[in-house]
Structures are given as C-alpha cells and as structure tokens.
C-alpha cells in the first residue's frame, strides 16, 4: 500500500545495550518524572466543585431575549437561519392574535424555533444577523446528553424565562464595538 501523505517514517530498532537490558535505570528515570510532577502546579481542576471563569465574550448556549415588558423579541425573520453557516436553525412563524400583544413584540412571531446544538458551531453569526436584538450567545454551556434528539433545542430551552433574565450585556458591548469598526 502506497502512503498518501509520504510523511511516514520507518524506525528501525537495533540491539539493546547492556544498560538498556538492565531496565532499572530507565524505570528510575520514569519514576523521577512522575515524582517531579507531584510538586508542580496542577493543570486540572476539580469540576464541578471548582469552575473556571469564562471569558467575558464566551460564545455558548443561545438565548432568545425578551424586551423590558417581557415580550419576545424574535419576529421569525429568518436572518439567523440564512446567516448560519452550519444550517442549524429552523423556525416556523405565526401571526400574533388579538390579546397576545403582551407575549410578542411584533405582529409576527416564531411559533417554533429550533437550534440543532450538534450542528451549531457557536460562531455567533446569528447574533450578528439578528435585526431585532433577539438572539444572543451566552456564557452557558450545552449540557451533555445520551440521546442525539435531545440536542435539538426548542423555544422551551432557548427563550429566557420572564423571572430569570439572562445577562448578555458583555456580549452586547462586543457586538456594538464590532459594528462600530465596520462603519
């Protein structure tokens, strides 16, 4: 079989010398390395008791924002889905009925909004594309699951709860800076 990359190196092993045949010096050397690391700074932390702090602009799990009056910002314009390079976002829009003005800001809203977290590459382009200030990436992470289906996040997981708002002010600053640069 011919190698495709041509980077393979064939290593030839010669006879072992007397010192190598003894094994003991090599074992001592190996143990030495292990013991040396006992006194070095640990690179791991005890998750979940200990948690590392995220960067201020960490791009994690999305949130669909509500405005100050608790109405959903998203109007199902589809810009995020067009911008998405991984095609992770789908939605179905619906018309706001009379009496639902306190739920949705505009006359059209997303009745179904799904992000496939397995497809999503957390690039943040949806956030940039959104004309309604509705979708933001947050410093939360996507939970691990056993089942692939459970990674399709619907509105129940994405829309922020009225009594549990999610702070995205740091990301907002970052987006505005980016837009200013473009100007």
């Amino acid at each position, binding site marked *: 079989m011919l190698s495709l990359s041509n980077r393979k190196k064939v290593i030839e092993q010669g006879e072992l010398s007397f010192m190598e045949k003894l094994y003991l010096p090599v074992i001592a050397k190996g143990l030495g390395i292990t013991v040396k690391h006992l006194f070095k700074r640990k690179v791991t932390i005890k998750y979940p008791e200990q948690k590392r702090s995220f960067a201020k602009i960490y791009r994690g799990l999305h949130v669909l924002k509500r405005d100050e009056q608790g109405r959903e910002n998203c109007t199902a314009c589809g810009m995020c889905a067009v911008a998405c390079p991984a095609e992770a976002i789908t939605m179905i829009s619906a*018309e706001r009925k009379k009496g639902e003005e306190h739920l949705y800001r*505009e006359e059209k809203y997303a009745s179904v909004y799904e992000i496939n977290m397995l497809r999503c590459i957390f690039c943040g382009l949806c956030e940039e594309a959104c004309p309604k200030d509705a979708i933001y990436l947050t410093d939360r992470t996507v939970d691990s699951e056993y089942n692939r289906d459970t990674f399709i996040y619907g509105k129940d997981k994405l829309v922020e709860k009225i009594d549990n708002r999610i702070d995205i002010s740091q990301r907002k600053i970052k987006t505005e800076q980016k837009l200013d640069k473009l100007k």
Partner: protein
Amino acid sequence: MAKVTIDDIEIEVPDGTTILQAARMIGADVAPPAMCYYSKLATTGGYCRTCIVKVEQGSTKDPRPMPKPVPSCRTTVMDGMVVRNNTSPEIQEARAGIVEFLLINHPLDCPVCDQAGECDLQNLGYKHGAEATRYEFDRRTFEQIDIGENIKLHMNRCILCYRCVKTCEQITDGRVHGVLNRGDHAEISTYIEQAIDNDFSGNVIDVCPVGALTDKTFRFKSRVWFTKPMDAHRDCDKCEGKVAVWMKGNEILRVTGRKDEFGEVESFICNTCRFEKKSVSDWTIEGPRKINKKSVISANHYEETKKPTYLYDRVQLLNDGKKLPEVNSKDNG
C-alpha cells in the same frame, strides 16, 4: 429610428421609445431602476422619480443638455441623445435622495414583511439608501385592511406608485380600487373596503413593488428565500396558466406570475391559479426558475455554484509557479 447613447453604449431604437425602454433593451445593468413604471400597463410611470437620468445632449439638432435630471420612463428618445445613468455621480446622488423620500413614511418592518427578499424598495434602499433616517416626525400610520378574502393591504408600506390602481383599471372590469385623499394623506383603498372579486384582482400583489399588497394565503408562511421557485403551468380557461410556484419541500406555498429581471410579470394570472391551486397535482412543474445570484433567494442554494475556472492558474502563480497537486485542478472540480 433614433440613435441614443446610454452610459457610453450606443443603441438604435424606434422613434417614440422612452429612455427607460431603450436602456432596458441594452440590458439590466444599464437600465435605471423603476418603482412605478410597468411596461405591461399603460400610463404608468412618472410618479416615483427613481428612474431619473441625466441628458447630456438633447439631440443632434439641439445638442444642449437638459437642465435637470429627467424621468426616463416618461421621456422619449431623440436622435443623437446622450444619456448618463450609472456613470453619472450626480444622478446616483439624486437617486439616493429619492430613496430617502420614498422611505420617509416606510415603516421598515422588513423582518415582518412577506415581500422582504423580493422587494424593489429593499433592493433600492440597499443600493442607494442611507444607514439612518433624517426624518424626525412620526410616520403616517394606517390600520391593515383585508381587501377581499385573499389580499391584505398594509397601507403603511405603500409608496403610492399607482401600479395597482392601473392594474384594476386596465385588466379588471369596474373600477373599485383607487387612491383616496391627497398629498400626505393619500391612501390606496377600495371604496369603503369593498372586496374586489374580479378574476384578475390578485395581480395587484404581483405589481406592488413593496409589501403593501400581499397574498393572505401566503401570509407569514415562510420567508421568500426559504422557498424554492419553480416554473409551472396548467390548463386554465381564464388565463395562460403559466406561473411560478414557490415550494417548500413538496408543498406549494405560493403561486405568482413569472417575474422577469425588471420585476415585471410575463403574463397576468387569474385568481383561481393564484389562490386556489396549491396542490402539486394541479400543476405541471417544468423546473427551477433562474434566480439572480445576488438575490437573497439564492442564499444557501448551492446547486448552481460554479467553481471559478481561473482560480487554478492564479493559485499556481501565487505559488511561485510550483506545480500543484492534481486534486486541485479545475478538471477535478
């Protein structure tokens, strides 16, 4: 016959042709945009002023330039006329001003509007418009009106191009659709919200350059660019039956006329075809429509993506003339 030069391109056209028509004969790149002129309807044009051009030389006999920009849809050509459109910065600036005027009362609710993605005003605003408005007063607002069962009128979005009025006058019988009031208060309306129940009334949706008149059967169903336009036809006793169907999966979401590169339908279609035939079995589907690559409708459609042929040579050039592996060659595209 008259010889005219538009943007340094010479063309010979019959007498009585307007500058706009002559420019369209040369090609879509040269033709000025038009919001109110519609070649299939008589007496349209002259309202929006989007199609203004500069006439540098009136004719061979009288070579003086015209003092002001002229609306090309209403100005006929003269022999030896020299016209500037895209090549005149003055016209581009003036057109940006016109766009600003058109957008004064426009609600800019594109994220909600069904027309977004195929809207003439959106394209125009994207090309010429300013980033923000300078208008400080409240926009005029109207309630949405249902005109009949299938048409929704959003008067807020209207730019008063009169195309729908001319459509109702010329291809339907009985005038029930018109413009009420004057000036800033002017609004397109039917007489006391009277329903239009003519067979061809649905065409007002196709001629509308903005999202003022929209299809209620398609309302908020999908964004235009998520649907796939296909040419289709059926035997219809009222119209030619040649339409474009907008499909999502195996479902027909919307039926419209076939629009050409200037946004004008090839033939007007009847309401039965437009609103009632929404099943795939009703239509003989001919194939996908050609969509301009710059249009958002072609976003995320990779079928027609072409690998640039020049790339291989250029990359080789950048690579100091070193030979590239064969996998990257254009023949393996």
